[in-house]
Every structure is written in C-alpha cells, then in structure tokens.
C-alpha cells in the first residue's frame, strides 16, 4: 500500500517528520517497506531562464543557449552557463529546468558531465519531463510560465515534493488499505489529530433509469448489498493535474477522470468502486452467478471463461463485470462517456478470493474485497464519488438506489482490563485502554455487573474476540515498551533430560559417521522422478502437484538419491575421494506416516588422497560395512549378533551387498557396492559403496539395571589355534565362524578369519571353484589350564563342526 505525505495530511493533522511517521507505522504493525523522498532524486533541479538561444555554428538542429542559473538558490547570485540544446522548443526567454554537471539524471540514468557538442562546450542540460521521470513527455524541454520563480527548486514549484510511503499490510487489516484507515491508526498512537473529511450526501435530482436487483442465490452472502447511482451529462477527459500527480506518485497510471475517481477513492477510503458507461448497459443490472460457458472481456483486455461459482454484475446482454474483481471492456467508461453509472457493492471475501485465484486476476479491488471491505461503506462510497465526479466532470446525479442491505456484522466482546497484563504482560490503565479502543473506532460501553463490552467497528472484520481487543490495545500502546519477565524453570533443581531416544540416536549416528571420516550433507527432500526411481521410489504417490522443476518433482525414497547426485556434482568439480552422509527422511508413500528417518552414506572414488604410504585404494563395500557397523555399535545395536543376509535392494551390486538383520525379519542396515546401473542413472563414476541405517529399527533398550555385570576376566592363559579349510568359493566366512564358535560354547571365546586364499591361483592349487579360508579360534579356559588332550578335543570339534556346516575339508 502506497500513499504520499500530503495525502496522509488530508486525513491527519501532524507535524511529525516522514521518518517519525514511518517508524510509527512499523511499530503499529503497518510495516514500512520503503520511504521515497523525491527530493533525493530531483532536489537539485532548479528553474532557469534562457537569456538567448542562438544557432549552433555547426549543427542546424541544435541551439546554443546562454542560460541564467541559480546554483545556490533564488536568494544567491545567478550565474550564466552555456548549454547546447537539441529540443525544438528551446528559445530565447524560455523558463525551464536546469541540471548542472555532476547531477544524476533519473530518466536517462547517467551522471551529467560537461561536454563538447559539435565543437561547442555545453555545461549543463535543459530537461524534459521524461528526463525527470515525471511523465513520458519528451517532445521538448519543460516550458514553464514566465512568472515561475527563477532559481527555485522545480519539485517545490511543481508540487512534486511529496514523500511516498510504501507499507506492507498484513491480511487482517483491510481497513489500512485506505489512507483514512492508516491515519486513524496514527492518530490513535498520538502522532497527530484525525481530520478525515466527512462525506456529504449529494441529493439526487431524478430517479435512476437503471435499476439493480440481486439474484436470490447471491443476496444472502455472495453480494448482499449493491448501491448505485446514475450521473448524466458528464464530460469525461483527463483528470486534473493534482489527481494525476497523486496517482502517479503511488504507481498508478491516470486513465480518465471517471476511472481516476474510482482509483482515488479505493486508495483514499479503502472503498473499491466501479463505473459503467450507462449508454452501453442494456436494460437493468442484476447481480448473479455467472452462467456455464459465459465469458467476459475484462478491462485488462483479456477474455475470461467464467463458471457458476463466480459473481458477476450482468445486464440483459450478459456479464458486464466480475463482482469485486474487474470490470468489463464492453461497458467501460471512455472519453465519450456522458452518462455514468457508479457502483459500490459488497462482495463476499472468500468467493472473491477463490474466483480471483481461479482466473489469476490480481486487482486493487480484489485485493481489498479478498480481505474484507467495510460493508457499511457502500453508500458513502457512492456519495464521495458523486461529489468528485460532479466537481471534475459536471453532470446531474440521480437518486441513490440500494439493492439488498449491508450484512449485519455487529458484534461486541467483553474487555477485561486485567487481560492486557495477564496475556501481554503490559500494565495499561483502564482509561488508556478505553481511549485507544475509542480512537480506533471501537465503542466500549459499561454493562451490568461492572463489565465492559466493546462494539467492533464495521471496518474491522479481523477482530473476533477478546484477544483481538488486547492486541489492539497493546499494539497502539506499543510493544516496544514490553519488558522482559523471567519464565521460571518448569521444576526446581537439576535440569531434566529432554531428548527422546530417536533424537539421541540421530545425534549419535551423526557424530559416529563424522568420526568415520564422512562429511554430513543436507540435500533436498525432493529429487527427479528418475533419481527417485533409481532407489526404489518415484511412484505417483510421492509426486508433487506443483514442483519447482522436474529436478525436484518426487519425494525421495532415501537420502541416497540426493547424496548420489551430490557425489556426481563433486566429481564434476574434480573431487576424487568422497565420503558423504545424510541423516534425514525418506518417503515410502504420500501420507504423513510414510516418512522414515534413516542415515545413509556413500563412499566414492579412492579411500584417501594420493600419498606415499600406499593407503590409497579404491573404495569398496568394506568401507560401507565398517561405517555402518561403527554407527550401529555407537547406537548400542548388537552388531555381533546380526545376520548377514543377501537380500539387499536392487540398487546394490547383487554379489557385493547385504542386509544386516536382527533375526531374519528386522533389518537394521543395508550396505554394499552400488549397482552399475544405479551409478549410470546418477551419473556417478565408480567405484561407489553405500549404506542405509534404519535407526528406528534398533530395539529399544530394555529397562534394566544401569550397573554393569561383574567383569569375568580369567587369569588362565588363553590358547589360540589356527585352522585352514578348503571350501567352495561361494561359501561365506560367516558360515565357518558361526560353526566354529558353536563347537564348544563354554571354551571358545571367539573366532576370526585371518586369511582368505581365493581366485584363479587358489582354483589352480585347490581345485576349480575352491578357496581356502583360515580362521583363528581362541579358547579361554575358566577353571584350569587346558591340557594338550583337551585342546586337541576342542580342535577336533571345531573341525567337525566347520566341515559339517561348510561342506569343506581341513586344508592339508
């Protein structure tokens, strides 16, 4: 919402500076966006006189002017300057506007410099209106009356020195979409005295030949009131300079007096109006819903297809305007209009907003009706427009006709003067509370039982309860005066823990993965359909209706989708050693409960930068498994008890991936090298290995004693025995180890693989399809040192168990 200082001063008597007004508006909740002082751009342009305009020695079209200028104002001595000017109206004796070298010319965007034009010095410029950005006129330089004050600032003389305020109006304040409403707020704050001129009724001189009716379906809510009046014998044309200036200052284009009047009242009073050319209206007007298939060529030159949810003002020929949104071209006012029908109606905010949104029309009228125009303002709007039209265009007014009646929105709420202190924490005396509310147009009245009821003015649809009254009081009293008051802790003593198990897991996993050398990322929750599909997602259930681009169209099934895209971007930037992870949501569907927070990570390229120890190697699935197990261990998952199952999802390499599962049914993690097709889909150069941890699947720790069981360390010497088995090449190490550990649960404390001999060389020496796996089994006696015979017995059990489980043989 834009307005100028002089406009405001027609509603408010104030000596406050523009900055003070701006600060107050912001404090009142009418936040200043921009304060523009035309003097900043135009203050240097002064009125000058052309002493003599003679021919340029070398150019027929240019004039050589001797110009009398007043660089330091009219009261200081003048100075003569030579200016070369190309304007056709440059002439001896012309009173114009001078720009000196060094000044910025807003219309051309250049800083003026002394120059030489066709061999003749030119030390300034005589300006056109376009160069000053006050109109489009560039036919000649500004040509002022001879009595214009020489040496004065042009903006003062031309009445252009009007500060422009641009403020943001929150959707609850339709009353502040008119200068009068803004002045009311400022006056309530005490920044001046409200003096909005009263609107005088103009008596009608004849009955309106156009009548108006409300169709039954609109009369209750869509358009309960429609007021109008015909003014005949008007002479339309350009509106006067003051009105054009005012509209231009707030960014509106003057059109014609009749249209400019409606725009002025829209901004002055927050009251949108519409004017029909009565000669183009066929028969009477009716407000009704649009008919199926009905169209309207609107004033913006576009044709809109209407539907029966939209309110229109129609004549016998069809829809002539879209109620509360935009008028129609066919019945619009032009220079030739002589009989004008002025409309002031009230349209339902919800319906207006929905229609406007559907048709994608934004207009000053819709902006106000969407938020709620004062329903009591219809007749006043007509009368204010009548007075202005008669003043600017002449004519005689008919009687005002009113169809329907203003919706009854009268309501009152109780004001408890103590509520301001208890809700806001500001002690404001009751008398001040009453004063503030009264100044805003509310009417506090005492009712039985010593209570105060407050009537809400018709222009405040937002006030719907006591809390709103408190807000008005606090807002006008100023929240900057609010003083902080400690909020006591909910309980005394030591602060209690606040994190949930899930939150602790995320925090721990994050730190554990960073400790494992990975860089945490936050990538977008939406990816392209192809990226989502590469990781098991991308169905219509997770599709966005209005994505920002096709790259961000589907909710990701797993952070891996975004991480892999990040790997590709980093590879494109030349990164060779990549280890990224993200802890965040993935979606299995489009419902709120389909979200699951997981921790995913990916390794790509080499394990380390090029260096001399030989530690650099291509990343592989062991990197992914190590990180996954480290994080699971940090989270308290029973890593040593997890099953390794070969059923990882298909974006992993089928032979180099696994699920770590608690029992067969509770997967806690998947890991592995990525499938070549997934790499290709994501444009990632391999090798790459990834994992996903299902943090919420880790069992909740049982409520148990916090104290640890006693340490069962034995003083007896442990014994380690090594065994090598020849097994099938696809026999998994875990098969051997599980068998070995189970061979004698009392004695065997652990078993590990310390050598694997596989590949073609093994096949050559051990037989096709065979490999050798060497395991170390650790025996820990608890009661007495083991004898050789006992060790031998256990070893035999180990060999038997492993051979049985693996189908292999002890290597000779």
């Amino acid at each position, binding site marked *: 919402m834009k307005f100028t200082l002089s406009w405001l001063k027609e509603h408010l008597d104030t000596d406050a500076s523009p900055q003070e007004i701006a600060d107050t508006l912001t404090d009142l909740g009418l936040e200043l966006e921009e304060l523009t002082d035309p003097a900043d751009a135009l203050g240097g342009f002064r009125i000058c006189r052309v002493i003599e305009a003679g021919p340029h020695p070398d150019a027929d079209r240019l004039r050589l002017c001797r110009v009398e200028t007043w660089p330091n104002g009219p009261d200081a001595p003048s100075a003569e300057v030579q200016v070369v000017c190309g304007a056709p109206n440059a002439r001896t004796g012309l009173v114009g506007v001078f720009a000196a070298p060094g000044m910025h010319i807003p219309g051309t965007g250049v800083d003026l410099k002394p120059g030489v034009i066709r061999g003749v010095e030119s030390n300034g410029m005589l300006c056109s209106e376009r160069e000053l950005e006050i109109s489009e006129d560039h036919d000649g330089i500004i040509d002022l009356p001879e009595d214009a004050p020489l040496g004065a600032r042009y903006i003062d003389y031309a009445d252009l020195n009007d500060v422009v305020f641009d403020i943001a109006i929150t959707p609850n304040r339709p009353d502040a979409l008119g200068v009068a409403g803004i002045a009311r707020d400022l006056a309530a704050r005490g920044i001046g005295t409200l003096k909005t001129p009263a609107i005088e009724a103009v008596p009608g001189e004849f009955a309106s030949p156009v009548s108006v009716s409300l169709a039954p379906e609109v009369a209750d809510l869509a358009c309960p009131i429609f007021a109008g009046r015909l003014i005949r014998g008007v002479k339309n044309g350009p509106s006067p300079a003051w009105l054009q200036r005012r509209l231009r200052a707030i960014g509106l284009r003057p059109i014609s007096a009749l249209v400019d009047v409606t725009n002025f009242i829209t901004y002055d009073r927050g009251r949108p109006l519409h004017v029909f050319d009565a000669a183009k209206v066929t028969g009477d007007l009716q407000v009704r819903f649009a008919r199926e298939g009905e169209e309207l060529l609107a004033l913006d030159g576009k044709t809109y297809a209407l539907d029966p949810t939209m309110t229109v003002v129609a004549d016998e020929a069809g829809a002539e305007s879209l109620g509360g949104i935009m008028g129609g071209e066919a019945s619009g006012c032009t220079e030739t209009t002589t009989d004008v029908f002025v409309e002031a109606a009230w349209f339902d905010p919800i319906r207006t907003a929905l229609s406007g949104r559907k048709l994608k029309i934004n207009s000053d009228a819709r902006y106000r009706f969407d938020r709620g125009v004062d329903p009591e303002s219809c007749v006043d709007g007509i009368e204010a427009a009548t007075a202005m039209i008669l003043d600017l265009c002449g004519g005689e007014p008919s009687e005002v006709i009113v169809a329907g009646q203003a919706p009854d929105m009268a309501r009152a709420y109780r004001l408890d003067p103590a509520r301001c202190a208890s809700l806001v924490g500001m002690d404001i005396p009751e008398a001040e509370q009453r004063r503030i509310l009264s100044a805003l147009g509310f009417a506090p009245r005492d009712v039985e039982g010593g209570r105060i009821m407050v009537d809400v003015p018709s222009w405040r649809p937002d006030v719907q309860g006591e809390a709103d009254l408190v807000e008005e009081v606090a807002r006008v009293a100023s929240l900057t005066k609010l003083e902080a*008051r400690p909020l006591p802790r909910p309980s005394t003593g030591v602060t209690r823990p606040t994190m949930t198990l899930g939150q602790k897991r995320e925090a721990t996993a994050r730190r554990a993965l960073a400790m494992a050398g990975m860089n945490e990322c936050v990538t977008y929750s939406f990816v392209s359909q192809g990226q989502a599909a590469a990781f098991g997602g991308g169905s219509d259930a*997770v599709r966005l209706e209005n994505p920002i681009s096709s790259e961000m169209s589907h909710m990701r099934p797993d952070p891996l989708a975004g991480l892999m895209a990040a790997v590709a971007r980093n590879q494109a930037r030349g990164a060779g050693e990549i280890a990224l992870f993200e802890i965040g949501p993935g979606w299995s569907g489009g419902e*709120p409960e389909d979200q699951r927070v997981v921790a995913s990570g990916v390794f790509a390229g080499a394990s380390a930068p090029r260096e001399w120890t030989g530690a650099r190697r291509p990343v592989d699935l062991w990197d992914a498994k190590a990180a996954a197990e480290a994080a699971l261990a940090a989270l308290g998952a029973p890593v040593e008890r997890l099953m390794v199952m070969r059923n990882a999802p298909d974006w992993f390499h089928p032979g180099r991936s696994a699920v770590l599962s608690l029992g067969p049914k509770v997967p806690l993690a998947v890991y592995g090298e990525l499938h070549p097709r997934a790499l290709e889909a994501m444009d990632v150069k391999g090798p790459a290995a990834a994992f996903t941890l299902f943090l919420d699947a880790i069992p909740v720790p049982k409520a148990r004693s916090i104290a640890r069981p006693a340490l069962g360390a034995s003083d007896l010497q442990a014994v380690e025995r090594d065994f090598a088995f020849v097994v099938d090449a696809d026999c998994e190490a875990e098969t051997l180890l599980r068998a070995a550990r189970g061979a004698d649960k009392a004695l065997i404390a652990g078993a590990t693989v310390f050598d694997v001999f596989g590949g073609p060389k093994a096949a050559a020496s051990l037989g096709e399809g065979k490999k050798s796996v060497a395991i170390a089994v650790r025996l820990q006696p608890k009661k007495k040192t083991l004898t050789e015979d006992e060790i031998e017995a256990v070893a035999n059990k180990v060999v038997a168990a492993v051979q049985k489980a693996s189908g292999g043989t002890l290597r000779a």
Partner: protein
Amino acid sequence: MDGLDTLRASWLGRIADAADEQALEGARLGALGKKGEVSLMMRELGKMTPEQRQQAGPALNALKDELNSALAARRAALSDAALAERLRTEWLDVSLAPRPRAMGTIHPVSQVTEEVAAIFADMGFGVAEGPQIESDWYNFDALNMPSHHSARAEMDTFYMARGEGDDRAPHVLRTHTSPVQIRTLQDRGAPIRIIAPGRVYRSDFDQTHTPMFHQVEGLAIDRDISMANLKWVLEEFFAAFFEVEGVETRFRASHFPFTEPSAEVDIRCSWKDGTLKVGEGDGWLEVLGSGMVHPKVLAAAGIDPNEWQGFAFGMGIDRIAMLKYGIPDLRAFFDADLRWLRHYGFAALDVPTMRGGLSA
C-alpha cells in the same frame, strides 16, 4: 711379581683395543679363559709356599677383577657404539605425512540445531517432531487458516499430487514447523514447553530463498505465561546462542493467523566491515515472528483456551546459522559441495553443551 704389572698393562691394552665383540672375547679367553694367561698363573698358586701364596694370591685376584671390569666396560662401550650405529641407519624423514585418517564434518544446520536444543533444554524445553508431508488440516486449518485464508495463498505451498478418484484435500509439504504445535498438544496436552526444529518447504527459489529450509518452532503453554515471558526467553536465547552478555530485542506489532497478539522480533546489532555484532550498536535485525497462541489454535489442539495460554515463535535455523557463523549463501547449504562442507562444517567432537559452551 714385577711381571704382573707388565701383564696388566698388556691385557688392559688388548681389551681397550678390541674393536668388536669377537676381539674382546678373544682377549677375555687369552687372559681369563681356562687356558688364559692369568688363569694359568692362578693355577700355579697351589704349587707355591704359603708365604708366596699369601702375596701372589691377592695380587692375581686383583688383576682378575680389574680385567673383568675392563672387559665389562669395554663390552658396554662396544654395545653403545653398535646401538648408535643402528640408530643412525634407522633415520626416517619425519616430515612426511602419516598414514591418512579422514576426519568428517557435521553440517552447520545440524550443529546449530543442536546448539538451539541445548539452550532450550536448559530452560526446560524438549524437542518435538512431526511429519513433513502434512494434511492441510494440521498445516493450515488447525492454525486458524481456513481454506480460503489469504495467508494460505501467500505461503507458496507445495501440494502432493492426488490420485484419480482421491477427492481428499491434497496433503502439503509443511510450510512451517507450526503443525508440530498441534500434534504435540494433542499428544501431551498442557502444560508444555517444546521446540520443534526441522525441514519446511515453500515454492520459492532465488538468490535468498530455497524451496526447502529449516525452522525451529517454540511453544510454551501454561496457566499464566505472557508475552513478557516470551521476550525474556528470546533475549536469554539470543544471548546464549550468539555467545554475548546480553541481547536486547524489539517487539513490533504484526499479524499471524495463529497468534494473537503477534509480534515480529528484532535483535539489536551492528554491522562493522561486513561483520555482524549482535547485542550492540544502533541497528535492528528482524529474526523471527512470534505471539501468544491464538485461542482458536489451542481449541483446535484440544486445549481449553480459558484455562491455558502461552506463546509460540518460529525462526529460521539456516538464517541464524548464517548470521552466527558468517555463511554468505543459503543455497550452498543444500549443494553438498565438499569444499563448503569442510570449510563451514564442524568437527565430530564439537558437541555443543551448556557447560562446555556452544562454539568454544
């Protein structure tokens, strides 16, 4: 026994001259071995008269002891020299880098979220969470934004596509963390103190906006919580978060559908040479929106507004991260550029706590 002096001088000389273990052993055997010169002389003692023996015995024993000492000393010296020589050959270039051990980093959004949670935990606020695909009821209606509300249109909402024949209002990507207020109040009731950090989404992508960003919601409901308490909580928070003595806030009246009264909150700050200093200077920086929870919002969450009241606020996590740590570009937060992650990220063990400090 004058010969003994010559003998002593001769053997001590050989011992001293022994260049290695072998020569030394040769000297030992020559003097003190079974057939060594000194051993043989000692064997002669039995054949002497007691008088002779009394004189020669101690002299020979003394010679033997002296030679043994000299042998030991020489052996130690040879060993030292050998060790010194070995160490000399074991020289390594210690300026070389060790075997690489990658250190990862924590994303600033995570770090700052933990900082915020640590501060609010100290004031008794727990952390609550909610889904990011939300029903329009939780995201809008329950927050006093009915379907026609203009604020809805202004929020640049992302909608989920609805399948053919599914006539329910489309779900949305939550446009703010405020729906967590409703869900948490429904679950736990009042009194309550929570913050709800997380991802939010708006269809806006330019220099300073990304279609996804992070907010933290705050909510405190009790019987007598006022806006003055909100001001205190925020001032305490900002002082702790920006790690300064105190931060003055300025409340400006505003409007949000879900609070009444509503206020935008500025913090006092200064800009010097492009650096933000919070808590000093003449400038004000808008950092969050807040207010007293609207009675209709409480009612929607099943809380009796006649009995309970309190405040809510929402602020941008990415934004306060940028302000605190001088990170210039929001879009880079979500680009996962390793150079950016390593530069602006935090060490794995930099866990923010109130007793240890946040960034210290």
